[in-house]
């Protein structure tokens, strides 16, 4: 059936079953492959996106649940790597393999929108849904602090 979505500020009409996870609609139907599949059960965070500025696991979010809401993916953060999180991530060379980093950055974006100056404990609480098999955790932590600084200007 035809479903209307708003993704990164643009309207899309997709013809999928309403129970289809948002993840696969983003990746296969809309073609936004920056959002990653990791587990399918909301246990790794690779699929993290924002729905109305709050963190959501797109692998367990039915597409029907985001109708009328604003979905933001990694591709929607900026056109030119200028978002404070992207600037900080580049400055600190956070990614290794990079596969989990879209999810890490989106989880961090949700954190900073709630807590513009997070403590280490805030970061632990907000970011422990996200697995990084390369173990870039200490750089993720420092890059979030740096992004908070950049955002303050």
């Amino acid at each position: 059936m035809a479903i209307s979505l708003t993704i990164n500020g643009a309207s899309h009409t997709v013809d999928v079953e309403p129970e289809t996870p948002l993840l696969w609609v983003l990746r296969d139907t809309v073609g936004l492959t920056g959002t990653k599949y990791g587990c399918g059960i909301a246990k790794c965070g690779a699929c993290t996106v924002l729905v109305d500025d709050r963190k959501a696991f797109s692998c367990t979010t039915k597409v029907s649940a985001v109708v009328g809401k604003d979905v933001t993916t990694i591709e929607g953060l900026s056109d030119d790597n200028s978002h404070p999180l992207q600037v900080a991530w580049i400055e600190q060379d956070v990614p290794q393999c990079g596969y989990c980093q879209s999810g890490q950055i989106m989880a961090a974006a949700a954190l900073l929108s709630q807590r513009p100056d997070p403590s280490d404990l805030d970061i632990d609480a907000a970011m422990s849904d996200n697995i990084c098999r390369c173990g870039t955790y200490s750089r993720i932590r420092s890059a979030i602090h740096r992004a908070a600084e950049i955002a303050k200007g």
Partner: protein
Amino acid sequence: MNTMEMNRRTFVVTGASAAGGLMLGFHIPTRADAAAIMDDPWMAGEGGQEVNAWLEIAPDNAVTIRVGQSEMGEGVFTALPMIVAEELQCDWSDVKAAYADTNRHVRNTVEPYMVAAGAAKETDNLYQRMATGGSGAVRRSRIFLAQAGASARERLKQAAATAWGVARADVAAENGILSAGGNSATFGEFAAAAAEIDLDTEPAIKTPEQYTLLGQSLPRLDTPLKVNGSATYGIDVRVPDMVYAAVEVSPVPGGRLVSYDFDAVKDRSGIIGAYRLGEGGIGVLPYNLEELANRVTGIQSGVAVIADSYFRALTALQLMPKEWDAGEHGNVSDESIINGALDVLANPDDPTFNPAHSVGDVRSTIAASDNTIEATYITPYLEHACMEPLNCTAHVTADRADVWVGTQNPPRALAVAAEEAELPPEQVHLHTTFLGTGFGRRLRQDEVRQATAIAKALGRPVKVVWTREETTRQGKFRPYATYHFSASMSGDGKPEAYWNRVVSHSIFNHQLPQYLNNGLDRSALEGLDQRLPYRFDNQQTDYAIRDSHLPVHWWRSVGASQNAFAVEGFIDEMAHAAGADPLEFRLSLLPEDSEFRNPLLVAAREAGWTSDLGRGEGMGIAVAEAFGTIVAQVALVTVSRRGQLRVESVDAAIDCGHIIHPRLVQDQVESQVVFGLTAALYGEIHIKNGAVVEDNFDQYLMLRINEMPQVRTHWALSGGEKWGGIGEPAVPPVAPAITNAVFAATGKRIRRLPLRNHDLTA
């Protein structure tokens, strides 16, 4: 007999569009046109002049350097171009990186200048080494990459010298500019002429003291692509007219799909077909690039469902009735496997033991002693848990196959695809993507064989994606291993004899039995035989293979990953029994000239080593060698009264000889500490009724940011001729450093991993 069942209506419609023609290998870069690396790393830029196979130079002086290793996080897209650029003496800001072309590698032997320089054999393929493993990206590519840069630089200088009527020795090449007297030109201006030049002698490459670029922690070239979702991993590949396949194979390795009922799901939306996979389990590869007869690329019996979207394919696959025959292994459990090994281990006269190393006479020394200790250590099967679930995209036509995959061994993947497509390797194009980690798992090619087989039957491009559950259950596992140690000491605590028996599942026996040596698996004995760091007057190691039906494979740091846990744990036990400080005890067992001394001393010094912390807090020390690099670690842990373990810090001292990019090495060490810590705390694959029990991250647990210790890397570099690998060697010491620290904190000796199974309550 492989069969494709089709949904006729869908097939007719899509079949017609497929006949309209495909643009193969054509994938429009989306947003990184100006970046140093394309989104799709197999695509190089356009318009450059190739000077040699490794590099091309564009009129604007942009230098595209080809990378023959796979980028899975370790940084080869930065480190390897740096090695070429160091010699080429171009401007680093002009450097772009792209994968070397696997098809060219297969079709061509190495260029003559490389042989003339002594950096290759005539029979080597064009890019010499394209498998990424064994921590070899830098140490095994460095010389020929440097030669490629140096030989290109001298040709550029000669081209300019000829044009300007001066001697080559009078031409300078710096930062992409050639100059002599009043003449000056860019590398780009002379690239075409340089490509035609033959030199009488090839230039020597630099020695480490001459490095100017190498040694700097330059920004990674791939980072900008990895913060906006544009880096293309295998799972992200999209080609025109592509469809999707979900697969499920026998949950019991070696079992068989008896039947499936495609009719039950074929009328669901978007369903295209079902395909029976891999009768018989293990396939043999007749065409073999690396002269390794192997049994590693076969696929298990199972079925694929193909649809116009992955979710539709997966849903139909899960709903489709299937009947499995577990075969002869349906009663196997992890317990039965380990118990079988322990039975062998308990009998030193078991005929399956082979001597791996022997000095003096351990049996009579131990038998005559009244001061002996013994212990048994056990390590479980582990899965790699690559962050990116396995996947592969393939398209097969009558005269060409294209495969897109994040693989650690592109030539092997190409060979597997060629075999499955029934095409000569020359007609197969293997496009290596970024890898969402590899850890050794992606040296196997089972996903490539599946995708190629399905694509050939289907006649259109197909992307095969495994679920996380399928990825875990169909792992190629780090073997289990069991160890028995016995030792005797004199009255004053001086060790007299050390006897280690090992029973494990052998990777070599599983896939390369011709490389067993008198029943010994060299990788299973890493650090145990004559490679044991410590010296005893009487010392013996015996090894027995006891395999199960699980497929096993290289797992980051391979044999050392588990052997160091056992050895360094038992050495700690000996130190305790002798009433000695664990560091001092280790030093007393090392020869004066041992390379293990300095890393131990550096780690201890930097960590503020003490074996005397308060209750509930402890330091543990361990050292191991892997892939030519020695790493010593000191872990600091706290254990609460309720038994809650926290690893506070790990100080790692590394001797890999030389470093070309300090930050990449630090990141690798940190990555390996996390990898080793994850395994030590949580890692365990259970087997029940012949099948793997764990399937997703709710059961197979991973370390998370709230558990991350402070990791500090310290240099203990010996320089000289030593060039050690850095992709794996910090994994082995992690588990024993932690378990030894747990002993210091609690008095509890951990002899079986993972730690989560142990009660550490005070």
